[in-house]
């Protein structure tokens, strides 16, 4: 915050940095940011919840973000999401109750030529099917072969 001289127009930059450092934006963090930048708390909250990038809750241990951009969608990304949702009984954007897996749907990860594609703990996988994804996620969660490889 010092770097941006507490300028209120740098609020988004500050939130970016905070999320990077702490993984998510807790109430405490938001409070501190509001205080030190002299921005009303409700405004900080409004900005933090406007953008999909910011998360107010801790993310899961593992994350699987499926691209649902147009190219991926027409090539079956919807089915991948549905299968994952069913398998782990959560909705896209949620984390399993045990905090182990976060399933997300991204608007477009910009690798349309690899459609349908997704990222598994940050690693990009392309040309996938629902079954192949499920298999890899299972492997990851059970800490199996593919899981270790991912690391």
């Amino acid at each position, binding site marked *: 915050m010092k770097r941006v001289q507490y300028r209120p*127009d740098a*609020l*988004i930059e500050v*939130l*970016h940095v905070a999320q990077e450092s702490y993984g998510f934006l807790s109430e405490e963090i938001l409070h501190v940011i509001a205080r030190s930048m002299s921005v009303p708390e409700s405004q900080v909250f409004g900005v933090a919840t406007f953008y*999909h990038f910011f998360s107010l809750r801790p993310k899961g241990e593992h994350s699987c973000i499926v691209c649902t951009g*147009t190219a991926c969608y027409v090539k079956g990304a919807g089915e991948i999401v549905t299968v994952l949702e069913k398998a782990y009984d959560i909705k896209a954007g949620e984390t399993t109750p045990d905090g182990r897996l976060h399933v997300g749907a991204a608007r477009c990860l910009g690798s*349309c030529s690899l459609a349908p594609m997704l990222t598994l703990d940050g690693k990009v996988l*392309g040309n996938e099917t629902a079954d192949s994804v499920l298999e890899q996620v299972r492997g990851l969660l059970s800490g199996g072969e593919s899981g270790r490889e991912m690391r």
Partner: protein
Amino acid sequence: MNRAELDQLRDRARQAKGEQRVRFLVCYSTPCLSSGAPAIRAALEEGIAEEGRKGEVAVVATGCMGPCSRGPRVTVQHRGGQETAYERVTPEMARVLLRRHAADEEGPPEHVLAPDLPYFTRQTRWVLENSGRVDPENIADYIGRDGYAALGRALHEMTPEEVCEAIARSGLRGRGGGGYPTGLKWHLVRKARAERKFVVANGDEGDPGAYMDRTLMESDPHKILEGMAIAGYAVGADKGFIYVRGEYAVAAKRLEKAIRDAERLGLLGARVLDSSFRFRIDLRLGAGAFVCGEETALMNSIMGGRGNPSPRPPYPAQRGLWNQPTLINNVETLGAVAPILRHGPEAFAAIGTAKSKGTKIFALVGEVRTAGLIEVPMGITLREIVEGVGGGMSEGETFKAAQTGGPSGGCIPREHLDTPVDYESLTALGSIMGSGGLIVMGQKSCMVDVAKYFMDFCLDESCGKCIPCRAGTVEMHRILERITSGSAVEGEIERLEELCALAREASLCGLGATAPNPVLATLRYFRDEYHAHIREHRCPAGVCRFTDVPREHLGDRQAAQMQSARSEMEGI
């Protein structure tokens, strides 16, 4: 640095390049990065070191080379100018390539991309001239290809008015989708009187299925910076913001480095190229909001607020960032600026059609053989793009429609394949040029489902400020959901059309106003598909599952159950 020093730097860069006998260009753009480019680079560097060929053989991590569906891509250049392009390269193959090209060993010519592939021959590379040719993280590479020469010319040989005039003469129009004449916009901001002015490069590319801007920023960041600086000089701004979509980490990193490098060399900063022109650029990272591609929302976001758009007028050219006149251009538009000044506005205007000049970058994806980023002259027909550049439809697919303009655009059916691609023709077909997403769909795509997909996108991305967009998109999506699930009744299409008209005319910003486009376009060309869904509960593409019934029949299942229970009891 002054202009003479810039020239020296350029010559030195060229000379250094000339000393290398073989150059391995490895595509380091997101799709290739994710399909294994770093391992290939590592394998090549290792091989070079082992064989002691440092100096004569070089590995360059470049930007996008094009056919992204065939990545990872590698291009090998020999000093004589001879070039070979490879597709789907593996680290093992990289070692083979190294031996073949650097040690002149014979090897099987596998994975070679034919140089006469229509994908290459039918393109006109203008904005993408350096993409896949230079190392985006090396400013000398850019300067070696006449980088920043246009800025030098503008600052030392032209008045701001002349620069605006040159852009106007080139016929360049906004590449973000709107198609507003760029020169006119520059003139407006130039003429506005104010204490300060700003230039904003809009790199918040949000259309799903499009990645032109990302590629440009990743592959040739300095070209955008140069374009911004020229724009700043032309309109009288001393500060620029480049707003990059939050998802584009690679682009942001490269731009940040490019800004630092340019500042260090005096190509940005207090005295640009030894002139009295002062210009600094700040990078702003988006945080996941499609609506921020709308210029007033983008400005609110730059100022640290929620990305809600504001009613226009006032337009940014009158009152933008911090209430000062602000020039907002898409990064692709700015990417065309330096080449225009270098080659002359007339050369640019000679390409394209009467009203749409120059070239346009498209992200050609979907059911085509060769998918990837392409730059083609305006006025090229859709058929040439799909069948020529794209190499035709993928195996077993026949063309049904092409979607342009993303969630704000529409689709173009088979019967209009020969339409020239320019702003006016696409608009006449009910689609838009948009930022350049071009998704080719085959018979397995359901047009109602596609319309629903885009509506889902819009309702999710609606900022929520105005009712037609916030609530209207939800109702439109509901109707589409009913049509695809089998619970729709007669009259729903008409209600959908009424909502489309409302959103189009009464929404606050472009997101809401264009949200109905995919629906209207599919209704226009594929109305019978809608009817098949509603009247026959049949999805011609076989996508929709009709799991629901109209409300009137909600009780039927239970009535039948009770009937059978009753007859069972009677049987006893």
